[in-house]
């Protein structure tokens, strides 16, 4: 759709369900995938809570949008940076998060993890490397 390829970073710092930002941010990511840009997602502060397993929204009467994260690989969105310190502060580990994979078409469609756990300092480097930063 476009000759220009920019690095887009979607910054997620808020917990899911208490507000709509997490869900509507994901909607931008899905639509944005059609534009063939270099897309990354950042999860830090309460944003790491968006990726936890076992979200059961039935009693709350809300839409469970967490399965959508697992579909991101099909949209060629394969870089989900998750901040280590944000996990640690919240008593979470990688095991608490969904298993999100993508198929690497350059490597025989081998399944690889989309979640990349990074330190705060590395996250700062990721942010500094972007052309467009969208925050929700």
């Amino acid at each position, binding site marked *: 759709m476009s000759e220009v390829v920019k690095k887009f970073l979607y910054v997620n*710092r808020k917990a899911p369900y208490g507000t709509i930002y997490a869900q509507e941010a994901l909607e931008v990511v899905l639509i944005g995938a059609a534009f063939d840009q270099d897309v990354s997602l950042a999860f*830090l*502060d309460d944003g790491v809570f968006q990726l936890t397993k076992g979200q059961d929204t039935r009693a709350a009467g809300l839409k469970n949008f967490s399965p959508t994260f697992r579909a991101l690989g099909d949209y060629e969105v394969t870089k989900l940076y998750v901040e280590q310190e944000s996990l640690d502060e919240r008593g979470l580990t990688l095991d608490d998060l969904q298993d999100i994979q993508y198929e690497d078409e350059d490597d025989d469609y081998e399944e690889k993890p989309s979640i990349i756990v990074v330190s705060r300092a590395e*996250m*700062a480097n990721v*942010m500094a490397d*972007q052309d467009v930063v969208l*925050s*929700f």
Partner: protein
Amino acid sequence: MATLHTVNKSPFQNQTLISCLGHVKAGDSVLMIEDGVYGAMSGSALSEVVAGMGANIKLFVLTADIAARGIDAGRVAEGVTPVDYEEFVDMAASHDRVQNWL
């Protein structure tokens, strides 16, 4: 390759300013706007934290929002430079990208 960060939350309300300052790179700028301007006040429980974390970068505060909140110019911390909207625009242009901490 510097970033202009904006922060619009009071540091007494939530961690947004602290989180922003924890992710800046040397040479970046942080502009406090809206309720974020309370982070620019001297003599608060967080003034030294902000100054310390902001040591390698430039701190700015939007004058329109300070005035609206009745923060006297004399209460703006020493290391923070007041700027107006025209200067905000200039900074957005002169930095390589803008990152808005909401």
